[in-house]
């Protein structure tokens, strides 16, 4: 058949269970963002004075964060994660189940469970997110993800320093980290899928054989059309 050398026919023969799927989290599977997560931890960080101080600090910095997020996502993340300084790893990890129950679960998209269920039939699921690893751990466990590529905070003597460990899981790094993750497991990324909602996730979407953007902005939808990515309009 003409054209089969281009690989389309080969792709068509891929069987179920061999194609990993990489999912972005915030905005794709849950209507959450990094501020939601930090605000929860700030409310539960211990002494009342500390809680008040952290929340007041967050309120004061909110406009700055908003601008930074629009301007440069990594700088925004650095600034926000700086607020974790002084929180104990033990508390962050222990509270993650409460974070899931109180913040994340109510904000999961209505389509999330069904979408993940279908994707899982094709192969392992991997979460790729700029959110701190401890914050998404309960979600990863509940929905049977094979693993997660998530931001890691630096801890010294069990306390957060407010710095992120390299590599940060944002922008172009997401693409590189997915490649490394897949290579370590012998996965062929041509068979893999990825779904995300943000223009900053282009690198992540670009490294897999089949990509989709979820409820994209007009700009991202235009990019998706140019690259031939799926455009998923979901309720």
């Amino acid at each position: 058949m003409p054209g089969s050398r281009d690989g389309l026919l080969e792709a068509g023969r891929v069987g179920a269970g061999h194609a990993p799927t990489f999912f972005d989290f915030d905005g794709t599977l849950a209507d959450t963002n990094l501020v939601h997560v930090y605000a929860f931890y700030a409310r539960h960080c211990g002494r009342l004075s500390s809680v008040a101080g952290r929340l007041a600090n967050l309120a004061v910095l909110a406009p700055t964060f908003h601008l930074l997020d629009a301007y440069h996502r990594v700088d925004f993340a650095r600034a926000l994660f700086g607020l974790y300084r002084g929180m104990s790893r033990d508390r962050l990890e222990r509270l993650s189940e409460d974070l899931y129950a109180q913040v994340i679960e109510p904000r999961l998209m209505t389509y999330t469970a069904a979408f993940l269920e279908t994707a899982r039939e094709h192969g392992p699921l991997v979460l790729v997110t700029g959110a701190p690893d401890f914050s998404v751990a309960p979600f990863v466990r509940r929905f049977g993800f094979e693993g997660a590529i998530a931001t890691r905070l630096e801890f010294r003597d069990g306390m957060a320093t407010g710095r992120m460990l390299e590599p940060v899981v944002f922008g172009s790094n997401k693409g590189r980290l997915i490649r490394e993750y897949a290579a370590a497991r012998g996965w062929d990324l041509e068979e893999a899928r990825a779904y995300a909602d943000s223009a900053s996730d282009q690198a992540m979407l670009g490294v897999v054989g089949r990509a989709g953007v979820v409820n994209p902005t007009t700009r991202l939808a235009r990019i998706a059309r140019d690259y031939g990515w799926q455009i998923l309009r979901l309720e």
Partner: protein
Amino acid sequence: MTKERTPTEAAAQPSAAPPGHARTIVHIDKRSAKRIVWYGDGFMHERLPVGTRVIYPPQPLKGLPDPDRAIRQALVRPEGGDPLHARLRPGMRVTIALDDISVPLPQMVRPDARERVLGILIPLLHDHGVDDIHLIVATCFHRRMTPGEIRRMVGERVYKEFWPDRLYNHDGEDRANMVSLGKTRHGEEVTINRRAAESDLVIYVNINLVPMDGGHKSVGVGLCGYRTLQAHHTPQAILDSDSYMDPDHSELHHSVNRIGKVVDQQLPVFHIETALNNRMYGETLSFLGKNEDTFTDLDRAKFAATQATLSRLSPALRREFLQRVPSPYEVIGVHAGTTEACHAPILDACFRQYAVDVRGQADILIMGIPFISPYNVNSTLNPLLVQVLALGYLHNLYRGRPLLKKGGTLIVCHPLHDDFNAEHHPSYVEFFHRLLPETRDSFELQKHYEERFATDPGYIAMYRKGYAYHGVHPFYMWYWGENGRKHVGRVIAAGCQQPYVAERMGWEWSSTLTEALDMARESHGRDPEITMLHFPPLGLCDVSA
């Protein structure tokens, strides 16, 4: 199909066909007026070659004088089995399944026939102590209907009482809510909606727009999933159908009937089937169903005004304008009861409305393609849907033999824009732009790609949680043109504005209808038999030699 009719049925019968049936075929001569040819969301206005045969649909049959009374009588005196009220008992679990937005086309003036039926049916159920009622829109793998579309279809009262918990769209990918009823003797898998399968009574309310609809197809297809569709939504089933608008000669229907019989063996199913006339146009656009030689000055003025209005609108507004004008269809038949017994008289009513006797096939067939198909209500008629209208639906609207001779030339009048609705038809885009350049062979497409599209998580998510047709749907659209594709020698897209679109589907193209006719004559000599199908409104050709 003939049987003695009860007084109730007689009351539900339409009047005899008007004399308009005799004028359904016109031959063009030197004095003939130009013909109006549908051209997407506009028209061509063409002088056809002398001798061209123009086939018009029959005039609309007279609607029932009192459709509500006919519905009540149908429930009391069903075809086969007990009256509905005798099947009811307090506390029973009832599921009402409804045809979706794909019928009728365009949407009908309110009240929709389904609203009429529900308005009588639901109080009847309540009166008998039946309150565990779910209404399921039997979308199969069509897109979900929006809340607004459902509200318009079922009416305000039913919508307020049942939406959203007990009135919802079928989801053929919701594994937890699909159950297997086993296999047919041919090994066809029968899976259907769990709520329906676990009900004490399933009531299906349909609109039989074309003879392909209704009968076992209602539950057996409307509420099924992929493994069941795989039995008959295949290129081979379509090739073996002659035609699929003629259920007795349709392999598609043979398979669907086997599946439906398994359903009927395991579930108590009560059908309420309705047939409509073909009054597609209201007073404003009624000229579109008329022989142009009989146009009055008012008709000509209306046509000029319509053309002027459409030409001033953007493509999106033209679509909106045309799709938002509801059709004043009238109910010409209502029958209820067991699947086959109730479907037979409805099929009779359909054929009585649509059938046109045609003697002799054509060398060249001209089809105007309108703005709408079953799969683009409130959406775009993309190239694959133009294809399924031309080589699928309109080609198959025959009994006996196709209107076009084997190897004949089909001229399809449509601008053929590379225009897809990304929300409704996302997998069509990939099918058209990635698969068709690889192959147009339905069997190759089925073998290598169908399963991949059918199981794609993104497409499934869009079908289940968005408003997209299922990922596999464009394959079905392509398959459904298979017997047309194998029968027709050449397809020429007349007035094609994006030639690569035509070429991708294996069609030739021309700028005008005249040019297309010249091209066609190259294959059929100087004096070919040319026929124009002046549809819609719909008709069906009973073609003899």
